[in-house]
């Protein structure tokens, strides 16, 4: 099955939503070349995305799979596995932002209706709030799709620390059960194990939410399975499979690609509520009210 790709070189349009993307594409292309070194961007075609057919996933467009290198060239931890420690750039597509209305996401009707309503609100210039615009959290799976994040990897645990939203995700690698006492959370409970040189992580106990700022809703029964592997010492691939018995009609697979930031790059502070007055994000609106009732276990 083809999978949807979110390359870190292709997304300088991420984070911006508008009805007509044509002129923005060009502006951002110039910006990318000059300032953020997004080499493929200038050549990014404005072709429409293919529609999905059956379980053939739409292809989000240009991306740059990294050149594979032998595992012997990777940094390794004391357990002999690839050491994922470093600062990685996930791109700025924010899972699916600008392009998401052009992708056939296998949402069930109630969830597709929420998404359509939110896309229309955006088109009308009145975006509806979500958990990120209200400065709460990316949560999973959105956290793994956006911006700069630091991986601190020890054999027993992987910490993913995002710059935007200051989120910390703990992935337990010690083979023990975790989070049994916890209620559902934005990030859920993540446990991982190695299959060869691929780190396989499963995340459960999620709060219901939205995968993107355009609003792809999911329920608290979603399970996120990630298969993260080092392609070369400066590139990771994260093949993510999303299953959700109420929001998705079938498993949805996407590919995220991460690129190591240059040496010396440091994460900065980001206190989202320091001065969050951005339009369209009133803090007193609960994004949860926009979800189908089925997203919340036990809801009437």
């Amino acid at each position: 099955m083809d999978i949807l790709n979110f390359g870190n070189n292709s997304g300088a349009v991420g984070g911006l939503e508008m009805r007509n993307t044509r002129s923005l594409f060009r502006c951002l292309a110039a910006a990318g070349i000059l300032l953020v070194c997004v080499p493929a961007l200038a050549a990014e075609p404005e072709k429409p995305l293919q529609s999905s057919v059956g379980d053939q996933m739409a292809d989000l467009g240009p991306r740059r799979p990294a050149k594979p290198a032998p595992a012997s060239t990777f940094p390794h931890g004391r357990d002999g596995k690839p050491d994922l420690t470093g600062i990685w750039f996930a791109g700025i597509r924010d899972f699916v932002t600008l392009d998401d209305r052009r992708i056939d996401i296998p949402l069930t009707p109630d969830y597709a209706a929420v998404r359509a309503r939110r896309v229309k609100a955006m088109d009308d210039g009145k975006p509806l709030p979500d958990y990120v615009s209200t400065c709460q959290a990316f949560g999973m799976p959105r956290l793994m799709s956006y911006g700069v994040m630091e991986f601190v990897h020890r054999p027993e645990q992987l910490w993913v620390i995002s710059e935007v939203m200051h989120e910390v995700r703990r992935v337990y690698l010690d083979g023990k059960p975790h989070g049994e006492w916890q209620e559902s959370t934005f990030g859920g409970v993540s446990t991982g194990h190695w299959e060869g040189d691929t780190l396989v992580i499963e995340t459960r106990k999620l709060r219901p939410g939205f995968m993107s700022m355009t609003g792809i809703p999911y329920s608290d029964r979603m399970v996120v399975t990630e298969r993260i592997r080092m392609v070369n010492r400066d590139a990771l691939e994260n093949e993510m499979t999303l299953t959700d018995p109420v929001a998705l009609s079938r498993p949805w697979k996407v590919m995220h690609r991460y690129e190591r930031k240059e040496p010396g790059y440091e994460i900065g502070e980001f206190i989202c509520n320091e001065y969050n007055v951005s339009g369209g994000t009133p803090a007193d609106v609960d994004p949860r009210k926009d979800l189908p009732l089925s997203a919340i276990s036990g809801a009437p």
Partner: protein
Amino acid sequence: MKAPRALLFTGLAIAAYAAQAHHSFAMFDFEKTTEVEGVVREMRFAAPHVWIYVTVKDPAKGEVDFGIEGAAPNTLLRAGWKRDSIRSGDVVKVKVHPLRDGAPGGSLVDITVNGKAVGGAR
């Protein structure tokens, strides 16, 4: 090729949003760019996005407070801005993508402060 500074800065402002936008910018009309000139009333160099409030003299409405949303502080700092690159009382010329609803505000495209581009030390 050496890019003209104005172009560089234009690129910076837009790229900056893209790099750190934590919310939608759909409230802004990216098809339009307008220019406003005025005096900075307040600069909020704060997460998630900086805001610059400019007092603009409008022939019809008198003094109007114009709110301009910029990029995230980290993005701007990495691009050479300083916390005090823009200060109250500065005379600024600002290009923005205006709010769709016509309210006095916009999304920062490009700014000159007392006739100079922002970016290096001041």
